[in-house]
């Protein structure tokens, strides 16, 4: 089995930076370059932001970093209210409503984003970035 690092932070804004920084250390250890590490940092920040802002009933956020060869893979889980990802639509960038940019940013920066969520069931978002 591959190694895994699990981290649990309280579901609050002031702890998101700790999760972000941890992700950069792990990505760095895995040999990603500076730009890729920045991408990973932002994507993990956005996923944690969503847990804090939309998963209010969750007391924690759990991050499982899977130390796979050749790729960065993290699962970010909250036990909040969840949402219907089927009903998510990408922001209309030209409208500049200032809302709904997080998932779009994640999708742009990562190679894969898998969202498992349901009303009342919490949310798990899996982010993958492959090494060039």
């Amino acid at each position, binding site marked *: 089995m591959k190694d895994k690092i699990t981290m649990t932070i309280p579901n609050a*804004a*002031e702890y*998101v*930076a700790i999760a*972000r920084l941890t992700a950069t250390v792990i990505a760095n250890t895995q040999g990603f370059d500076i*730009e890729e590490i*920045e991408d990973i*940092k*932002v994507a993990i*920040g*956005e996923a*944690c*932001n969503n847990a*804090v*802002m939309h998963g209010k009933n969750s007391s924690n956020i759990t991050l499982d970093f899977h130390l796979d060869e050749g790729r960065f893979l993290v699962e970010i889980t909250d036990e909040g209210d969840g949402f219907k990802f089927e009903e998510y639509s990408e922001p209309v*960038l*030209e409208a*500049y*409503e*200032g*809302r709904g*940019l*997080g998932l*779009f*940013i994640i999708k*742009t*920066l990562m190679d894969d984003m898998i969202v498992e969520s349901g009303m009342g069931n919490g949310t798990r978002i899996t982010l993958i970035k492959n090494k060039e």
Partner: protein
Amino acid sequence: MSLSIDVKYNEKKENWEVDLVGDLDINSSVTLKDRLNEILDQREADIAFKIRDLAYIDSTGLGVMISLLNRLDKNEKAMVIMDPQENVLKIFKITGLDKVIKISKEGESIEG
């Protein structure tokens, strides 16, 4: 890293100069938003952000910039973002915000 916000009014240029150092993220964006509204209530003027030492921005930070832009637009004032680092500029670019917000590097304007 947290965010440090340094604000002064430039009498000569008749604009607000806002220096941002650190991380503009979920933990600091509300503070920045409140501070900006406060200074604009005091004096409705253009705003220049100096962000050479801003290390990080996320969607909550972009949200602050968008709502600020809306307020300034209404009052026919302008904003400019000066000297972003590459990673910060990238976030403006992928969200298309570089097309509506003026971004300049070392005094020169870069086209979006």
